[in-house]
């Protein structure tokens, strides 16, 4: 799985272009930029995605949403997918903000 770039030690947020619509079975998400539709399968994952910004990092958001240690890995995999599709993004890395993105990458990766 491609997790390059997803760092659960950082603070993330739902991308502002993403609309979240809760459903009995989880939530439907639509990204107005990519026009992609996705489906979150658990209420806990919906809670995580919508509260990400309130926490200093992803781990704290998972804790607050009640994700158990046994579930943690599958939640991190799901969040890595959401980061890869642009559904969630690091805070301080606004869409199209190339300067912020470059600065973030330089700080995180140590390579251009």
């Amino acid at each position, binding site marked *: 799985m491609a997790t390059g770039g997803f760092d659960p030690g950082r603070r993330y947020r739902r991308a502002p272009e993403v609309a979240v619509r809760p459903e009995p079975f989880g939530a439907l998400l639509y990204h107005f930029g990519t026009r*992609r*539709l996705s*489906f979150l399968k658990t209420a806990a994952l919906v809670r995580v995605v919508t509260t990400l910004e309130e926490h200093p990092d992803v781990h704290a958001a998972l804790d607050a949403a009640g994700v158990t240690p046994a579930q943690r890995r599958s*939640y991190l*995999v*799901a969040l890595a997918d*959401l980061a890869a599709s642009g559904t969630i993004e690091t805070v301080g890395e606004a869409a199209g903000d190339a300067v912020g993105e470059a600065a973030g990458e330089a700080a995180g990766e140590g390579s251009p």
Partner: protein
Amino acid sequence: MPSDETPQPATEDAAAVEAGLVEESLVEEVSIDGMCGVY
């Protein structure tokens, strides 16, 4: 033998179950482009 964290399943059934568990994702990307009237 691949070096795995988990032991090889003993039976075909167990392998199938494990494969299902490993593949199940909490996120499903969807395309409704196969649907009528969606421009």
